[in-house]
């Protein structure tokens, strides 16, 4: 079952397409990292998923086929928006009260207990909390709704490293307790690697890379060796990115199930998620998508998995 399923999804703001031809199915039970450069369409995709935006083309369904934004879906999806917009003039307790009255499945006791553990006093005004505390409060409210899907839009932006670490730790604990699906967008790729097990990379409003992170990492390698043999390598593998420096060529390639024997003088090294993401971001025409269909890229250098 898919927690998010899109088909030909597109969103146009005036004459600019923020997202187009987006077709994907995100399986349940994953922590999905949604990455991409600024303006890639991450926030648009998340807003379409939680019903904050309406699709210009195509469709998006959630949690096994419910229309995004329907009451049924809203009860089961918790969303923490970018910049954590809460009501600054309310106290923390009132903010919980507000959320409890807007969500039938809200667990007040759980939220108070979690905030107590985090040292956030219920009497404090939300507007007086630090950025990290506000993010934790928003996350607490989201968890206390007992969602089946948690959607976080740039939850780490504006947080210092300590607050980022605490936030991710809280996320991991809560996910482990509830086993919910999580989709979150972020620029901080190093943080994603620790927690995410599924990657969706958007670029220019289109899906460029999608799949299990372990499979993506295992299916790519950095090959380095004499430039003279680089052409032969490129014939065997889909080259995502190539760099040449003097007598050394370095290719980040998609190896698929195995790379076999390499030409003499060539070495293979594993790639990290960060290297993989950066390579695809630098080569917007490359793609790595689940088969059988290529999604949205006119002349892909890459192949389907």
């Amino acid at each position, binding site marked *: 079952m898919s927690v998010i399923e899109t088909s030909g999804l597109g969103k146009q703001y005036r004459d600019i397409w923020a997202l187009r031809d987006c077709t994907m199915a995100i399986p349940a039970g994953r922590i999905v990292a949604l990455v991409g450069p600024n303006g890639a369409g991450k926030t648009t995709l998340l807003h379409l998923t939680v019903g904050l935006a*309406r699709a210009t083309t195509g469709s998006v369904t959630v949690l096994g086929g419910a229309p995004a934004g329907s*009451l*049924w879906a809203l009860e089961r999806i918790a969303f923490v928006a970018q910049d954590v*917009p*809460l009501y600054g*003039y309310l106290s923390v307790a009132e903010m919980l*009260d*507000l959320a409890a009255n*807007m969500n039938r499945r809200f667990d007040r006791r759980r939220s108070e207990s979690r905030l107590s553990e985090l040292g956030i006093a219920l009497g404090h005004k939300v507007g007086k909390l630090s950025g990290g505390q506000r993010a934790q409060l928003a996350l607490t409210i989201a968890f206390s709704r007992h969602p089946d899907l948690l959607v976080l839009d740039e939850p780490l932006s504006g947080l210092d490293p300590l607050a980022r670490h605490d936030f991710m730790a809280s996320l991991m604990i809560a996910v482990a307790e509830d086993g919910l699906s999580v989709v979150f967008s972020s620029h901080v790729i190093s943080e994603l690697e620790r927690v995410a*097990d599924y990657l969706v990379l958007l670029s220019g409003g289109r899906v460029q890379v999608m799949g299990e992170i372990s499979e993506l990492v295992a299916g790519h390698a950095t090959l380095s060796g004499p430039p003279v043999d680089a052409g032969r390598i490129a014939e065997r593998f889909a080259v995502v990115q190539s760099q040449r420096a003097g007598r050394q060529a370095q290719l980040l390639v998609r190896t698929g199930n195995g790379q076999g024997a390499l030409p003499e003088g060539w070495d293979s090294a594993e790639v990290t998620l960060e290297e993989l993401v950066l390579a695809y971001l630098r080569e917007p025409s490359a793609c790595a998508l689940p088969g059988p269909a290529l999604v949205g890229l006119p002349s892909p250098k890459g192949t389907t998995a």
Partner: protein
Amino acid sequence: MRTQSIPARPGALPRYPIPWRPMARVTWLQQRGSLITAAVLFAGCALLIIVSGLGAYAKLSPCLASGRGSCDLNSLHAQTTELTFVTIALLVIPVLAGMFIGAPLLAREIESGSFRFAWTQGTGRTRWVVTKMVLLGGAGAAAAGVLGLLADWYAGPFEATGLASHWLAGQFNVTVLTLPAWTLCSLAAGAFVGLFIGRVVAAMAATAAFAGGLLALDLMRLHDRFLGIAPGVTQSSPSGTGLGALNTFAWPGGIPGPLGSWLVNGWYTGPDGQRLSSAAVSSLVTKLDTSKSPVALGDPAKWLTLRHDAYWISYQAADRFWYFQAAEAAILLAVTMMFAIGIVKLVNRRA
């Protein structure tokens, strides 16, 4: 890989009951500042009307017993001024409600971005906005209705003595029907403008301009035209009245006309039943004013009849008052509904 069980989505999505009580709590939490201010304003207005009303009843009681003729009008100047002041204060209330409750209602959500929180909760954005509008509108209409009732009670002795009339533009718009209707219209206009503009201060200014402008237009132009719709016609005495648009009320011992009626137009007809020209009217009135005939002095209408002339008035009978009240309230509520529908549509489109 972790696994997760997602509840099977029913074939047809279930209908949830509208969460009135929880949303009442949400509305209170979010709007309590403006609601408390409004409650204080309401209490102040009610107190002002009650105190002024008790004073008016005490002062006007001799006139009520014996009629306006026996009253010293000069001594009632303070009371009539106070009535005017209270009426103006009541007229301003809908504009203030639109500015300070209606306009920030949605503009603040848009301006601060908190709509992204509110509209992604389990209540859903349509229910969120509809329940808020109904609860705030209901409270506003109820409070305005109470003030309208108090205003009716306060104006009672002034009307009985012919010092004021509920047909007059000011009082007409602060009754138990029209004041809540104006309040609802202004609240809805404020909320719509706030949602459209998305800036609190700008929305407040735009609401003040719209609601204040509409009210001023009604008081200065539309009211008299509205009361001129399908009037009755009767022959009357020209004493104290005039020619053309009258826009005043009949009162015993003063301007003649059917008791409790609103006078719309006055005109003269000649022996052939046709309206007299301005020159002919001028000549006729001069003759009437200079005539020393006891009939002319005592009963100008009879004097005209003897000359085969007549003075006519068009008027709204006293029993039509509440029809006009209901009609104006209905028009305002229709405008309110248009704004409300616009709000729901905009909320659902805004993304």
